[in-house]
């Protein structure tokens, strides 16, 4: 075949392919267009939103809700860039994020959807040695997590002089930000081994003797033991639980948010979704996933 002939053949093939692609896209595309809602952000909030999205799509077959994680930072950045409609956040936006939102004319509106309690967890060997749950004050936590106290006998004389192995979350983690805000003073720095995500941190504590770390309440399992935290106002130690967190007795708590650009207009899918999350049905899902509902009525 001559060069000219081959050229024609390739051109003809290319045109055929293009036609086929167009035809295929017409065939595959479903008839009615579905309203799309894109949600990204905090992996802490993710399980709640995923379940709510599933329920919401059952109720409204025309809704196409696409949920993905990535972290609070990614979620807020996506919202500012217009890549998502709702960002999931386990902390309030930082000053740089607010500045960037202002630059691009995005108005970040926060919707509180749940309460999360941060649990300090230890390897079971600590509780077995004590014979009772470990009890700590916020100041004890500060000194352990900044490395001022390095051995367990400095925490409680009944414990042996084993080194305290401290696990913390990765930089930028919402859980870490909240935890450090709650226990640190100006100029303090937490020092420890970094773990990516709640399950990884919990598994590290479960696998490492004489270790301590922190996770969201919903992530505690039988492999680790929770630490009771001292409430300075009440003068008593509080066990981390849904009840103690909602009533404010347990000190290490934070809010979880959905973030939108402005208040979503009445009738929009984003508005419907947020209303669903805040409805008794949505708040039941919040509780099922292991967080604490924002509305007390949801508690039966």
């Amino acid at each position, binding site marked *: 075949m001559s*060069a000219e002939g*081959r*050229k024609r*053949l*390739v*051109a003809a093939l290319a045109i055929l392919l293009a036609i086929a692609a167009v035809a295929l896209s017409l065939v595959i595309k479903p008839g009615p267009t579905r309203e799309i809602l894109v949600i990204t952000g905090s992996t802490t909030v993710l399980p709640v939103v995923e379940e709510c999205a599933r329920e919401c799509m059952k109720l409204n077959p025309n809704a196409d809700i696409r949920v993905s994680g*990535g*972290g*609070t*930072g*990614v979620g*807020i*950045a996506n919202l500012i860039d217009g890549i998502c409609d709702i960002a999931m956040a386990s902390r309030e936006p*930082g000053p*740089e*994020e607010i500045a*960037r939102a202002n630059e691009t004319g995005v108005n970040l509106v926060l919707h509180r959807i749940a309460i999360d309690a941060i649990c300090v967890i230890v390897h079971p060997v600590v509780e077995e040695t004590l014979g009772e749950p470990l009890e700590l004050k916020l100041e004890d936590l500060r000194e352990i997590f900044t490395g001022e106290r390095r051995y367990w006998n400095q925490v409680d004389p009944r414990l042996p002089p*084993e*080194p305290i*192995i401290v696990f913390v979350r*990765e*930089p*930028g*983690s*919402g859980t*870490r*930000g909240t935890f*450090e805000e709650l226990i640190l003073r100006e100029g303090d*720095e*937490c*020092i*420890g*081994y*970094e*773990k*990516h995500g709640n399950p990884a941190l919990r598994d*590290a504590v479960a*696998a*490492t*003797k*004489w*270790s301590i770390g922190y996770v969201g309440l919903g992530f505690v399992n039988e492999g680790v033991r929770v630490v009771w935290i001292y409430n300075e106002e009440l003068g008593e130690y509080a066990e981390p639980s849904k009840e103690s967190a909602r009533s404010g007795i347990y000190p290490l708590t934070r809010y979880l948010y959905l973030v939108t650009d402005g208040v979503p207009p009445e009738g929009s899918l984003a508005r419907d979704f947020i209303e669903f999350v805040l409805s008794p049905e949505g708040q039941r899902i919040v509780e099922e996933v292991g967080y604490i509902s924002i509305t007390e009525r949801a508690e039966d």
Partner: protein
Amino acid sequence: MLEAVGMAEGSSKSLDGIELVAALCAAGSIAVLGLIIAFVVAEGAPALASGILTLENRWEPEYDRYGLYTLLASSIAVAVGALAISVPAGISSAVFVVEVLPPKLRDFVKVPIELLGAIPSVVYGFVGYKVIVPTISSAFGIYYGQTALAASLVLAVMTVPTILSLSSEVLASVPLEYREASLALGATKWQTIRHVVLPTATPGVLASILLAFGRAIGETIAVVMVAGCPQQLSGPIWNLLQPVYPMTAAIVMGMGEAEIGSLHYHALFAIGGILLAFSFAVNAAASLISRKASIRLRL
């Protein structure tokens, strides 16, 4: 471009369709590489310009402390530790496969070892996390087994196939006459390997080691799962029983939550730039050396 290529091949012939497609694909790949480099440099430059990157032993983006020593020392300790195991293992298995095994049996040994290189790295990470880490903590009596040694062991297994397959190619391409001449002079088989085959193949073997080093420095997920990730190294760089925080791990740990445009974000891109520079240097050195090797082999 059409004209230029056509002219290079002779003015009468113009570029035909398939060549055009191939040229576009090649140009596309080069463009992607260029864009990646440009993006990493552009996003990393603010970190270098603002001088936030220091050489202190403290990597803690949460407090805007970006000490490169922790990451660089970790990456180097882990990669060197891995090569200390995989280089002797890889080269001796290459010698065994090429020089000792009868050619018919070669594939029975070579293919399984090369398959090690096809296992997804997350699987290595998982095995390392569940098997190597607990073994290290009980063998050395330390509570936290996620150490440089664990990462080195995982990377050693991952880099053996690279060294084996490249080195065995080089060894196999040493001309048969060299061996025959050596044996004819009365040298034993081992003497021939030691004094004739290996010296001839040295540049190619070195190139394979360099590529393995590049792989070890750049490997990410398997390392994150077993390295421990402390914010500072507690011991000297040669202490393999301490947790380490290699550069790739810092990027994985930080990227998800780093605010776009923050110091942390730019610092992570600067680390990415350092990794890119490492792998370019390693690849350039490897290709320089192996170019030299082919000249020597043709002598």
